[in-house]
């Protein structure tokens, strides 16, 4: 253990910096990814645009409001109310006020008609004009106020629905945003919003459980199958922070790492940590090794310059492929992390020999039924101990004191993982209690319980004692 912290950061995770990708969180709860170039302008569509230089230097997590000339002002958080004291319908209500609201809301509701978009009297053209005309720092608030005054039924609404309305409008029109570091949760969130099938429905909590059950940590050496375009690999790399390595097996000529383009790792570090190999090379290593012998120095010196470059590139590539094949052949990986739609009951037996003893096996699928077949295959294989299908689901709450409740609806996704431990069964000489000695047990029914490591539910053992 180092006596003082000497982490060499590969990228800045604390302060918003140039030449990095960042996640931009919008009031609509949408997210964007932007690359901060010096002199760059980031366009947020209807939320406006701003100069990258305006946000650089602040801590990640900082919120901003767009003001005139594509400048920004830092604000404390995205829902901050500029002039709370001046507004009657401030979202910050005391407990007593809330109690009152609950007690009276029946009465309040009595005089309202259903609120639809028809009571809205401000046209889109009006809104556009307002947006164009305003250049002041509070344009968003102004638009909302204008809309409220143009809203026929607004004063007849209950406090509740007024606030909901206000929040909806704020989300839609306030020119505010938060700049966040792209951790693995943020990268996953971006793809969930953008293209859920691409990440095969993995939720944040399931990604977290893959990494924990897989015992992912700095310094490990993992075998990985990742069909998410690299989201899982990125999550592993973030946990490892430059230490350790992984071999990624893929099924195409080239692996799809498109998600890693937002990762901002230096190319050499990424290449050092992530080795790739295709299934043909993995399964038929002897056939797939490249026949390559380096030429001697003299021969090399005699090559033309263009030939030299080609020679070096090919030499590097042949050595790379051969070295990865060697690493895969050697095996003893610290975990199997598998996020794939391949049929595992036939594939898994080929992979298991490569995983080290007592190391975790973690397999993800969007569908429990597919893991079920794999689990049965593991149970008859004996090289995976105690495989279980694990489902983890997070329920988020509307976290407003006095109005606390789970969110009413959520997208239905999440997936399942199958977790077990790679073990080395004895080939012979093992007699399970309750199997080999069934007869004895029948004679004396209290003598020995049944032992089936995979499924039986039994009591705890007796205590350890010195012999």
């Amino acid at each position, binding site marked *: 253990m180092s006596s003082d912290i000497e982490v060499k950061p590969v990228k800045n995770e604390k302060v918003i910096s140039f030449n990095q990708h960042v996640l931009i969180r919008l009031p609509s709860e949408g997210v964007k990814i932007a690359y901060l170039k010096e002199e760059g302008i980031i366009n947020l569509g209807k939320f406006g645009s701003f100069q990258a230089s305006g946000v650089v230097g602040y801590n990640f997590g900082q919120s901003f409001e767009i003001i005139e000339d594509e400048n920004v002002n830092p604000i404390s958080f995205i829902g901050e109310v500029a002039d709370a004291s001046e507004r009657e319908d401030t979202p910050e209500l005391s407990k007593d006020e809330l109690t009152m609201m*609950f*007690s*009276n*809301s*029946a*009465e309040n*509701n*009595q005089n*309202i*008609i*259903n609120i639809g978009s028809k009571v809205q009297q401000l046209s889109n053209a009006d809104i556009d004009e307002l947006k164009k005309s305003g250049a002041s720092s509070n344009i968003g608030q102004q638009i909302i106020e204008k809309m409220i005054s143009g809203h026929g039924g607004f004063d007849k609404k209950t406090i509740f629905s007024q606030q909901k309305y206000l929040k909806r409008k704020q989300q839609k029109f306030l020119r505010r945003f938060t700049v966040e570091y792209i951790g693995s949760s943020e990268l996953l969130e971006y793809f969930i919003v953008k293209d859920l*099938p*691409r990440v*095969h429905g993995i939720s944040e909590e399931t990604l977290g459980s893959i990494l924990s059950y897989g015992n992912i940590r700095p310094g490990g050496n993992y075998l990985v199958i990742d*069909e998410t*375009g690299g989201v899982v690999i990125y999550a592993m790399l973030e946990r490892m922070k430059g230490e350790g390595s992984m071999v990624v097996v893929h*099924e*195409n*000529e*080239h*692996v*799809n790492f*498109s998600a890693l383009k937002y990762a901002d790792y230096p190319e050499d570090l990424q290449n050092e940590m992530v080795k790739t190999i*295709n*299934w*043909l090379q993995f*399964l038929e290593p*002897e*056939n797939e*090794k*490249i*026949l*390559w*012998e380096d*030429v001697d120095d003299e021969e090399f010196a005699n090559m033309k310059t263009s030939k030299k470059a*080609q020679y070096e590139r*090919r030499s590097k590539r042949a050595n790379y*492929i051969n070295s990865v094949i060697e690493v895969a052949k050697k095996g003893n990986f610290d975990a199997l992390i598998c996020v794939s*739609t*391949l*049929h595992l009951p*036939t*594939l898994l037996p080929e992979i298991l020999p490569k995983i080290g003893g007592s190391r975790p096996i973690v397999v993800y699928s969007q*569908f*429990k*039924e*597919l893991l079920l*077949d794999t689990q049965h295959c593991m149970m008859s294989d004996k090289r995976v101990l105690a495989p279980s299908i694990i489902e983890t689901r997070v*329920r988020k709450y509307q976290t407003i004191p*006095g*109005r*606390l*409740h*789970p*969110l*009413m*609806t*959520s*997208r*239905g996704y999440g997936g399942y993982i199958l977790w077990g431990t790679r073990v080395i069964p004895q080939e012979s000489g093992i007699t399970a209690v309750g199997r080999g000695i069934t007869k004895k047990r029948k004679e004396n029914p209290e003598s020995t319980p049944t032992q089936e490591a995979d499924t039986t539910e039994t009591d705890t053992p007796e205590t350890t004692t010195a012999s």
Partner: protein
Amino acid sequence: MSFYQYKDYIEEGDIVLAFISRQAIKPITIKKGEQLNTRYGHFQHDKMIGMKYGEQMGGARGYGFIYLLHPTPELWSISLPHRTQIVYTPDSSYIIQRLNVTSGTRVIEAGTGSGSFTHAFARTTGLNGRVFSYEFHEPRYLEAKKEFEDHNLENTLITHRDVCHHGFEIETIPEHFSSNGSIEGDVVFLDLPSPWTAIPHLKKVISTTNRVGICCFSPCIEQVDKTIKSLQENGWINIEMTEVAGRRWEARKELVRDIKDVVKRLKDIQSRKGQGIENRRNVKVQAGEKREFSEVDNDDDTDDQKFENLGKGYNPFGKGIRVKEGDENYEWRNVTKIESEIKTHTSYLTFAYYVPSKET
């Protein structure tokens, strides 16, 4: 058409649920000369008359179809537009079961809301039971009253009332709704913003001769807290709060993508590449089974997205060729897929009982 019993053939005046798709079930009242127009075809009421309930009906112009369904409270609730205040079947079926609502039960419901739960109560209590429903919001009251009349909910009496302030008592109960001149409810369901203000009014209208069950339906936890205290103060016992989670799953098929096919395809790519490339390489080739360099070499190392992921419904042998789900030329595995949007919360359900003292 009745919510109390099935009929087999469609007649004029019936309410029929036109099933267009899972997301579109449209109630129509059969009237000669009218027509149902949908994106999936046009359907004449005249032709529906005399058809069997449950029958599939083809569109008038030769395309599209609907199914003509008999209304039930459960189908009715999913036919409603997804506005607020619908108590869906996962909640309503549990409340009915837990409070032992059966034929003959006398139910008190406030507020009526969309009237969805009222239908389920009316069906389950039957013509021997009674449903007393209260709605304080006048437009909703008028709408529900008309709907209940149209649906012939004979055992249901709706009252325009703010029960929180004015209680549940009805001055002139229609004779066939009264039990010794009183409401005498066996089961109470409160779907109100402040049930704790209505609970003290219940004593005058609940049964004096048997145990009474109650369920209060509130979205926020703070409402539950107040409700529990009010129930305790008013002598209700066995108070228990619960939540109901309902999930719906569809049957799907996933392609079985065997590793053998993957290996075959990789070999195929390599052999095609080997054939297509001129022998312009700089490699010392030795005899033997091992492959030659050109087969794996690639000049364009940067294009990592050249080959797409093979995802659901893609041909395992090549990229981008979509395979129809269930195509008999491939092997499939049955899987369940959850609905795309799930209801993660409806309301908290607070149950309790009131046991009147023994009459001596």
